[in-house]
């Protein structure tokens, strides 16, 4: 599903964010990316959804050579990838349902599809009764659930999460992780960058550790360090 071959990313010719990384992530895997701030986790994520292109090396995501993709094809790649962020990136002027519907609307999904899928996904993330609330009326955990709903409503092959629990308290984080696990069980590959030791240690999934841009550990059923 995801394959990196000797991938390096150098910013402005000076800062090396990722050095000679090679790895495979299979369909349906759940992978934690761990490492200190600035170790290259976010660059890794950004390379996968083509927000960045590799300086050298090749990346395949969902069968596509991401680095060689023309910019007009990038949107189609991203329709196969859901993204969740630490800061949720919800639109404050839209309701919960509108935020989720927006992501379907802008990729041209027909209205009847939107009308049936939005309530279903909100039910799935446990926000069926908050469809008409605005983001600022929700707790952080609830906002992150909306963001997960938005990322998953289009049934992507891959879900990328960049520190999704970074702004949440431990109890709320557990709820979000349960949700990501459920999504992973449907066959969606999940790649999650995190600092959250307890989550990594309890879930015991594959762990890839980065340090100054190098992959220093790749362990199945791993722990934080």
């Amino acid at each position, binding site marked *: 599903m995801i394959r990196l071959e000797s991938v390096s990313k150098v910013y402005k010719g000076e800062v090396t964010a990722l050095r000679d990384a090679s790895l495979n992530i299979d369909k349906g895997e759940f992978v934690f990316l761990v490492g200190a701030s600035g170790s290259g986790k976010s660059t890794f994520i950004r390379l996968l959804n083509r927000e960045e292109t590799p300086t050298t090396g090749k990346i395949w995501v969902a069968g596509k050579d991401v680095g060689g993709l023309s910019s*007009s094809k990038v949107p189609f790649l991203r329709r196969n990838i859901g993204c969740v962020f630490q800061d949720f*990136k919800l639109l404050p002027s839209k309701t919960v349902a509108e935020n989720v519907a927006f992501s379907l*609307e*802008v*990729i*041209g999904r027909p209205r009847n599809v939107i009308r049936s899928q939005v309530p279903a996904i909100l039910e799935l993330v446990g926000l069926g009764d908050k469809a008409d609330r605005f983001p600022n009326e929700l707790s952080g955990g609830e906002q992150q659930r909306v963001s997960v709903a938005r990322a998953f409503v289009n049934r992507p092959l891959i879900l990328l999460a960049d520190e999704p629990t970074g702004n949440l308290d431990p109890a709320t984080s557990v709820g979000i992780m349960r949700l990501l696990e459920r999504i992973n069980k449907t066959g969606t590959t999940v790649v999650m960058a995190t600092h959250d030791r307890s989550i990594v240690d309890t879930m015991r999934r594959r762990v890839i550790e980065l340090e100054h841009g190098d992959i220093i550990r790749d362990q199945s059923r791993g722990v934080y360090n």
Partner: protein
Amino acid sequence: MAMNLDYAVRETWTNLRRNVVISIASVLCVTVSLSLVGVALMARQGVERATQRWQDGVEFIVFVAPDASEEQIDSVGASLESNPLVERVTFFDQEQAYQEFSEMFADSPDMVETVTPDILPPSFRVVPTSTDLASVEELVQQYESQPGVIQVARSTEAIVAIKDVSDFLTGWALGVALVLLVVAVLIILTTIQLAIFTRRREIEVMRLVGASKAFIRVPFMAEGLVQGLVGALLAIAALRIFQPVFENSLPSSDQLVLFSEFTFSGVDMLWTYLLLGGVGAGIGTAAAAIAVTWFLDA
């Protein structure tokens, strides 16, 4: 890709409403510059029609009586052609005179209907070797007394003056209009940048979930298009309102010579309007396209 028209219209309208003040500024700037372009074009068309027969250095026209005999016409023609002070002579027969008349009065079909080729005078259009006032005057007097000639019309000072006005308007007004058009483009560009900035979070989400560039682009380009087009429509409305004022302020037909009148034909005006509409829509869309491209490629 299925572009949801309803979506594009809704987004465009929201944008325009959100930035209403600067949108009005863009629209007015387009209106003023296109009005100037329109005035310049109208002046030029009016002048061209009014001075149609005085193009290409024709300094005077010798009109022959419609009932003049062939010999009389031939002798006037031969005399003009052999005259060393005459550089070039063009003969307009009655059929050509009728055609010219029909063009001049294309807007007054009643007038054209009352005229038939046989009542119009044939004429010689004369380009003298020298435009010196005295020598032209001498030639005019010489041919006025020829048998068969009913009138010799001179390119009058009014025509010279109106041509100067025309040159001034088409030159300076178009120059100023061009500068204003550039200003309009910059204002629209800024308006769209502002609209994009206001919605940068939405655009970020759109890009993340895989909205195509075209999809992101269209509402902004439509916003630019609307601003340019509304500006052009206001300019056209202004021109229509001020057209009679404009016509009255220019030399009337009796200051010019025979048959010439300072009016605007409907066909010319239609083309002017279409041009203004096209330019307005074009610059609005182009400015918006530049703004969006800058943002998306940054």
